[in-house]
């Protein structure tokens, strides 16, 4: 698609420069992407350890591993770190940084220094939260008032940290929007853009528009705690449900900040390993924007039992079903892309297929929670926990792992052990389902979430879920070790090991500084696989 070559004698890989300052002060989007990748992966593993501790406590009904208060702190930390440190910046900040300029044929993002600043703001936010660990909050990651306004744990610092993190998200979103508008190579029209770019674009809009609201909300909470202003305290004329409205006005779009980039990844991986053009390009591209738009209008489906009016609940239920449509369209199109393909089950493709399978379960179980009468029974039970993890792990994390395996050779210039990668995938796939599938049944049977102890009747399914978490944990350890081992002694990666047509594969692995020797001239989309009639 791009007719240019790189002369080998001037090729300087972006990883060539060594030394700590070459990282701290870098404005190279690929290095900043790596810094995000390392940071979010670290926090993913930390919060994963918290998850294993939670599950271990839940092996038996009584409190025997940790006390209830400690349990509550652990699920608060697990949720907060996973959401705010890992999955919100997640794919968007790590792979978004690495891929957006490469895929659109640009030397870097529009504002490289701002990009570096965004990373350091992210790190500052995480540092503030680390300080808060001296007396960690026990509110859950949702910080619902009045509990968060009255608990004597340190809610102010952790919310301040999240407030700061928000700026990183806003600035990154802004940077990517400008980059995608202004930095596309000649010939890279909107309808030739890779779908990962469309997904990043939709995500960036959400980051830019929704994040300020959570920032303001957390600031109000901090004001309430420190100055005693009663925004949410009924004794002072406030309303606790107002907090929930504010919080979900951000946090529901945030769910799509988390999942849309993963959908973009899947749209890249499947065509390459099926050697087929993506099926329904425009449907997938526009459905990303459609999801982003509707996602602003569904927040109160988290609040059907909260005391909002019946009319409000009914309207939000209806709008919630609307968001299911573009999501379903994507799943159908990915599946149709496989038709008459030449399918290679590379580890990245296995993660992509796992995504489609698990995300389908996550999406369909969302229908139960969108339907008013059913949600009344299922709300705040393990059904929600299971649904949420099917979307977030089955969706986003599978997309993240798929992206790691897919672009690994390009990013680091080395190969990992493919057999070990497949074994890790199998552990993760089985472990995930054993952990979370039983939780659907627990929820239907009435097991409430956030319970440090639980009635004995739930024990068999609860301990099954805990055993699953061990398999899942083992799989993630195997995968991590395999990927790190590849960095150290993996074979050198060729330029384009899978025969992809996308621009990032047309430069050496790892890409040179500034990506392209000369800006490519794009003449076709990047999904032109197969024989044209």
């Amino acid at each position, binding site marked *: 698609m791009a007719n240019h070559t790189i002369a080998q004698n001037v090729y300087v890989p972006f990883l060539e420069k060594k030394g700590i300052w070459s990282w701290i002060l870098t404005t190279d989007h690929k290095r900043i992407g790596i810094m995000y990748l390392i940071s979010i992966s670290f926090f993913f593993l930390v919060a994963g350890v918290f998850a294993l501790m939670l599950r271990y406590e839940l092996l038996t009904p009584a409190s025997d591993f940790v006390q*209830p208060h400690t349990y509550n702190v652990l699920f608060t930390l697990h949720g907060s770190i996973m959401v705010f440190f890992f999955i919100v910046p997640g794919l968007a900040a790590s792979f978004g940084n690495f891929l957006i300029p490469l895929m659109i044929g640009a030397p870097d993002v529009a504002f490289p220094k701002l990009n570096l600043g965004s990373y350091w703001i992210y790190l500052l936010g995480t540092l503030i939260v680390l300080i808060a660990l001296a007396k960690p909050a026990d509110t859950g990651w949702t910080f619902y008032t009045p509990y968060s306004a009255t608990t004597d744990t340190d809610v102010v610092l952790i919310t301040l940290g999240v407030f700061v993190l928000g700026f990183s998200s806003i600035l990154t979103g802004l940077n990517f929007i400008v980059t995608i508008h202004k930095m596309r190579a000649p010939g890279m029209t909107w309808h030739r853009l890779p779908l990962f770019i469309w997904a990043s674009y939709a995500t960036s809009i959400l980051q830019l528009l929704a994040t300020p609201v959570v920032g303001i909300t957390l600031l109000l909470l901090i004001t309430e705690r420190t100055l005693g202003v009663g925004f949410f305290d009924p004794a002072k004329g406030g309303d606790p449900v107002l907090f929930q409205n504010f919080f979900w006005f951000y946090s529901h779009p945030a769910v799509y900040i988390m999942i849309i980039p993963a959908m973009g990844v899947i749209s890249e991986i499947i065509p390459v390993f099926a050697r*087929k053009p993506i099926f*329904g390009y425009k449907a997938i591209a526009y459905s990303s924007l459609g999801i982003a738009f509707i996602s602003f209008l569904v927040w109160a489906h988290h609040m059907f039992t909260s005391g909002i009016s019946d009319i409000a609940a009914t309207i939000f239920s209806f709008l919630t*079903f609307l968001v299911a449509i573009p999501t*379903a369209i994507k799943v*159908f199109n990915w*599946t149709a892309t496989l038709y008459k393909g030449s399918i290679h089950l590379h580890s990245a493709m296995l993660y992509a297929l796992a995504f489609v399978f698990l995300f*389908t379960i996550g999406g369909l179980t969302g229908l139960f929670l969108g339907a008013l009468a059913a949600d009344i029974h299922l709300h705040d039970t393990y059904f929600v926990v299971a649904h949420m993890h099917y979307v977030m792990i089955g969706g986003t994390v599978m997309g993240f792992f798929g992206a790691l395996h897919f672009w690994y050779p390009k990013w680091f210039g080395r190969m990992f052990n493919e057999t070990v990668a497949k074994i890790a995938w199998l552990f993760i796939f089985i472990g995930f389902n054993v952990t979370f599938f039983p939780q659907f049944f627990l929820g239907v049977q009435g097991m*409430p979430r956030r319970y440090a102890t639980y009635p004995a009747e739930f024990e068999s399914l609860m301990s099954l879920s805990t055993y699953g978490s061990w398999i899942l944990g083992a799989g993630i350890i195997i995968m991590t070790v395999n990927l790190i081992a590849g960095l150290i002694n993996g074979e050198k990666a060729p330029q384009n090991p899978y025969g992809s047509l996308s621009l990032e594969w047309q430069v050496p692995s790892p890409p040179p500084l500034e990506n392209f020797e000369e800006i490519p001239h794009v003449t076709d989309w990047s999904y032109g696989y*197969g024989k044209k009639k």
Partner: protein
Amino acid sequence: MTWIPEVASNLASKVDGVLLLITLLSLVFFILITVVLVYFAIKYRRKREDEETPYITGSEPLEIIWTVIPSILLIVIFVYGYVVFKDMRTPPKDSVEVTVQGKQWLWTFDYYNGKKTINELYVQYNRPVRLVMEAPDVLHSFFVPAFRVKQDLVPGRYTQLWFTPTKIGTFDIFCAEYCGTGHSAMLGKVIVLSPEAYEIWEKGVKADEGAGVASLPPVELGAKIYKEKGCNACHSLDGSTLVGPSFKGIFGHAVELQDGSKVDVDENYIKQSILEPQAQVVKGFAPVMPSFKGILSDEDVTALVAYIKTLK
């Protein structure tokens, strides 16, 4: 183990209808996607490197089909969910009203005839009940899986919930909205009585079980109160630390207070701690216990003291 909790209210079977419809539709789509995914992945596995693939970029008729059909089904689900929801939100005019208070970490129930119970809600078989609920401290949520009902309790306003019990027996109440350290111990029971038993209960002299309870020996009565009034949510019997100090071996020993001073745990200290919990709080614990003044009689307190004495 069953798939779904027992059906014990008029609303439960209606909600189950919605659950069943969505389950069936979901299964159809789930099986469809999975079968096609696996079938394609196997049938079109790459056998040679130079395989040719067709250049297919999409199909408008297919896009329309898989947009329109799910949309129609989604609207069906929405409407069904709404219709049942409307039922759940519309209590009959002749419902018996009970005022519910959820506080960290117990439930209190006030009845029209002045009766008051803790953690046990007494209702009559086949007679609609409307709960008017409030929370003085933080959010809670009243959840009875067997009835398929759930409603948050919100400080600063009343919320309501109704059901008609259709089965005689005892059913779990869970607090479903996270409310702090004792959240998972904020449990209660709905006790559905036959009309005859309900009538006896209604006219009973004592707040709870009537004459039978008062004749129990103090230690047994104390043990019963310990479980039924929710002491067990925060005070263990085995020495483990929950929200408050464990009762194990506490009697007769000195405890350190917030200000560093010490006090002997004797009959008076226990009585004071039950009626005015914040007066002398043991060091290391938050001053969160609600007062049981007016909830427990002198006789109840004496029984509790007698019971705690036995916990060596």
